[in-house]
């Protein structure tokens, strides 16, 4: 694994009116690694995803991808560079059959340039390519599932479809916003090897999760956010034993300390 940073986030601040959603958050992601971001509800995890992918503009600070400034660029330009994301609330095209969902990203300039996931060059029939991608991501090819209307699919498949939409672009980086949430234990168990395989394919991942056990299984590094500020960064053990993290999640054991904070 090379240690050069692929994504550098420096001092990013985002305010919504008087609310500070992110307060000077800085971190780096190295090429090929999996960075996990955890934190209690409302700690700014999704906001950081939105800032990096351009869906909202950071109030101040800079975000660089491969050394190029991407702060303030529109989302489609950032996706075009290969930084893709999944949505926490899944956003498939509900009225279309599942495989037609992928025809749309495959139509994008980036997919045409790169030939889509694993594609070597020119795209052939987009329908076939999209079913190929769906098969790799866990849709059974010899069943009706890839052809079913998206609105009839269970959550597990929708989460995979979100990932597949990213993969269709042949991404360099995928930012997963809670891909494990809402899934059953067995669904998560089948999702973990998938994530590991994406890493083996050389894709850098940022994972935002509440399912800590599964996250620690796959992530190389963990960053903890609390109230829009970076609390700790380090390996899973370091993070879990850190008293500040415990305090953020469970509250302080010491009553006087809580009172003095208040």
């Amino acid at each position, binding site marked *: 694994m090379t240690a050069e940073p692929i994504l550098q986030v420096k001092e990013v601040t985002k305010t919504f009116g008087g609310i500070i959603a992110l307060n000077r958050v800085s971190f780096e992601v190295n090429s090929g690694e999996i960075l996990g971001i955890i934190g209690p509800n409302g700690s700014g995890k999704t906001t950081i995803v939105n800032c990096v*992918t351009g869906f909202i503009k950071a109030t101040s600070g800079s975000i660089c991808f491969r050394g190029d400034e991407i702060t303030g660029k529109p989302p489609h330009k950032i996706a075009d560079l290969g930084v893709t994301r999944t949505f926490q609330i899944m956003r498939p*095209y509900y009225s279309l059959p599942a495989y037609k969902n992928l025809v*749309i990203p495959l139509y994008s300039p980036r997919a045409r340039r790169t030939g889509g996931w694993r594609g070597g060059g020119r795209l052939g029939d987009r329908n076939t390519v999209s079913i190929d991608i769906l098969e790799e991501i866990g849709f059974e090819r010899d069943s009706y599932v890839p052809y079913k209307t998206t609105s009839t699919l269970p959550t597990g498949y929708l989460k995979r479809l979100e990932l597949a939409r990213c993969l269709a672009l042949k991404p360099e980086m995928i930012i997963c916003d809670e891909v494990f949430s809402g899934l059953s234990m067995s669904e998560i168990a089948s999702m973990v090897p998938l994530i590991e395989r994406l890493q083996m394919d050389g894709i850098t991942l940022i994972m935002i999760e509440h399912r800590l056990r599964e996250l620690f299984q796959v992530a190389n590094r963990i960053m903890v956010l609390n109230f829009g500020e970076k609390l700790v960064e380090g390996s899973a053990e370091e993070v879990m034993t850190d008293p500040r993290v415990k305090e953020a999640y469970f509250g302080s054991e010491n009553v006087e300390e809580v009172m003095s904070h208040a």
Partner: protein
Amino acid sequence: MSTAAQQRRKERIDRGIKVRTDGLYALMSWRELSYLIAPRSILIVGLLILPLVMPGLYWPRVITIVCIYALLAMSFDFLAHYVGLVSLGGAFFVGVGSYLSAILNTSLGFPPLIAIPVATLAGGGICTLALLPCLPLRGVYFAIVTLMYPLFMARVIEALDIFGGTDGIMGIDSFPSAWVEQYGMIVVVLIFLFGLRRLVNTDLGLVLRAVKDNDQAVKASGMNITRYKALAVFIASAIGCLAGACLAHIYMWTGISTFALDFSVLPIAATVIGGSGTLVGPVLGCLILVPVSELLRDFGTLRIVFYSLILLAFVVFRSEGLMAYGQRKYHQFERWTQI
């Protein structure tokens, strides 16, 4: 397993399931073929023989007006149902198209058959540029802003007294003959009808529908949604301008009344009656609404009352639209005969 064998396996699996899920089936007999072809051919043949069974001076003109409204209604339906932009700017498209074609014809001396295509493309470009600032708007906001454009243009022409001012532009060449006029319009309607139907089922059409359903996901897929919206507006406004250009040459006159809101509102009513999202429906709606409006002329001012009542009845009793209803019944009928 070699790649060739893998490829064969994929194809074999996909074919079987695709056939069963996509409603694709091999056509076995003339009966099945005719099931698909009959409705289309009835429409085509029906439209083509209309001028023959409608002699006289009055009704042929109604046919061409039906065609003009049909073009507008198709463009409205395409934009509203497949791209999610509800446009009340139909009158703007018509006005721009008719003024352009009129100027090309009277000032530059282009014959109608050249002025119309040029006005269509140039008008589409102008309308798209004009609407570019409001493309980020959605839903009812886009509708309100586009409604402003025709009103705005009419006032500008009136106030600045350009393009003939309130008198309009007169002395525009007409079509070579009434037959060219009627058949030209009918063929144009059919071409655009089947062209649009094909377009919305291509991958590009899928992207446009995705922009309507879920623009965030399209952005996240690395596509500039404004570009696709602009492309769709260009297609729709070019169709509207074509209608306007033809109108100028049919009446041999153009004026501020081409920016009248009839051109924005009647296509919407036709779409409601015909069934939105079908593209054929709006054409059918125009075929009903325009002649009905002509027939009701005998009632004088009560015409609007009856017209509104008919519209109301459709909205209450057949809110899905005639075409959607017809399609359902047609498929049921096919089942019945099989049983």
